[in-house]
């Protein structure tokens, strides 16, 4: 879900891995800040940056230190570093002895050791204490998910959405749960809510296209094509939408009985292939030695699509 964000933040050569243990203090600080703000889940790397770079002179972070400690604590819990998480919680607790935010970290610590009951007790208390803070309610859903209680989680998110209707993250989670339940129609509904909340996010349109295409049937494929077109308009470099346009048009061209429609869809599919070919021609064969093979596949596809 965050891949687009990552791309925005790391536009340079993404295929080479950074060695996070060797970066400078300032670079480490900036990186942690970026990840904190976009909410990307790179727990192992966060722990690495903290241990090898930042922790040596964490005092020079100033007030940012507490936010970093919170971030590192969650990352440590996520990568099973119990010792480090405890260390962070101790420091935060000493600074903010009565903080609910620190209490939440303790509850998450219970979650990580599968003491779900203890965690839920804390979350219930926190929700009671601060009903407007949605993060505690979200943790309660997370506990259900960790236990694999899918139907309970669906119910809990539905309750949550009655209060916080405008939370795309919750709708996305719900859509995924419905997909696991094999209920694509309901998953579509969740995505439509996301579109209403953020009408300029191409990912939602593309995902709707994917869902409709998966559902199948002439009407849905037509919907899918339109969603992909919309997504591509918002984000013209989106490879997935481009592929989506190719797939949906190809499907229409091979199933429709209307000759004009068939021809139009065939042409659109060929056009999509041309765009894809353009894109792949710019790929460096050093990074991706298989790009030539994909190009050949696309050219072959063009011949079959064109002959329809």
């Amino acid at each position: 879900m965050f891949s687009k964000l990552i791309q925005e933040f790391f536009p340079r050569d993404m295929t080479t891995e950074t060695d996070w243990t060797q970066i400078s203090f300032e670079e480490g600080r900036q990186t942690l800040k970026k990840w904190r703000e976009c909410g990307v889940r790179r727990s192992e790397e966060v722990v690495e940056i903290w241990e090898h770079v930042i922790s040596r002179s964490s005092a020079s972070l100033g007030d940012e230190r507490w936010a970093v400690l919170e971030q590192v604590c969650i990352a440590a819990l996520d990568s099973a570093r119990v010792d480090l998480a405890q260390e962070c919680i101790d420091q935060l607790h000493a600074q903010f002895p009565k903080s609910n935010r620190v209490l939440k970290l303790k509850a998450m610590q219970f979650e990580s050791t599968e003491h779900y009951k203890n965690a839920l007790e804390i979350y219930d208390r926190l929700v009671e204490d601060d009903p407007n803070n949605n993060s505690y309610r979200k943790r309660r859903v997370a506990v259900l998910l960790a236990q694999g209680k899918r139907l309970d989680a669906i119910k809990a998110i539905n309750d949550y959405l009655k209060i916080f209707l405008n939370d795309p993250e919750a709708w996305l989670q719900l859509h995924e749960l419905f997909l696991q339940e094999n209920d694509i129609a309901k998953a579509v509904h969740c995505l439509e809510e996301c579109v209403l909340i953020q009408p300029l996010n191409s990912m939602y349109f593309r995902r709707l296209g994917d869902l409709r295409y998966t559902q199948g049937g002439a009407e849905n494929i037509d919907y899918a094509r339109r969603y992909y077109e919309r997504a591509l308009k918002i984000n013209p470099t989106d490879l997935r939408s481009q592929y989506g346009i190719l797939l949906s048009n190809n499907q229409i061209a091979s199933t429709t009985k209307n000759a004009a429609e068939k021809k139009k869809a065939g042409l659109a599919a060929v056009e999509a292939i041309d765009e894809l070919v353009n894109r792949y021609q710019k790929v460096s064969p050093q990074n991706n030695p298989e790009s030539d093979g994909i190009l050949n596949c696309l050219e072959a596809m063009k011949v079959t699509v064109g002959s329809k």
Partner: protein
Amino acid sequence: MRFSFIFPPLFQNLRFQMKYQVETQALPYSTIILHCLKYPSKGVFGLLIGNKKGDKVTITGCVPLSHESTPLAPPLELATSLVHGKFGASLVGVYFSNSTPSDTSLNVYATRLADRISNVTSSPAVLVQVMNERLVSDCEQDRLVAYEKDGESWKEAKTIFQGSNFLRGLQAVIRKKLYRELADFENHLDNPEFDFYNTNLSNKLVQVAEFRS
């Protein structure tokens, strides 16, 4: 397996009249494990490359596809047709892992994809599941379980595990954090510079782990 205590030992062989024996070579085995390690909080999917000789299926390679538990049709269709175009009948099956550690159920999205591959290659596909609870680094057991289609349902097939030969190498690979360099088809769609066949990574794996093929 759950019912084994009901049956006297005599019947045990009868219950498991398996057609296939599945052997996963060091390189695909490691790649599958690395795919799981790259996305510890998610389920993963991928395609298996190999050959069938009689009742023995040897997995010689794999193509990581996605890191979500419910992959939708468009990327799967694309990847399948690209991989089938490249490998033809060597496309033998599907691997997957569930997102939570204790969940050992068969994912319907995986079985559906396996059925699809059986259709595409007109030969029965095998399904390989990663047992997440065995992913701990010092585990000496086979982390993979294979399934074959039996009528309408999937049942466990026999696996041949020669892990003692390569687990040490795999551990070296994990220590080097090479899983961060792995790319699946979803990564490729985010940025086509990523090679989902993992050509460069495979070379590194062979070098670091000294796998003998």
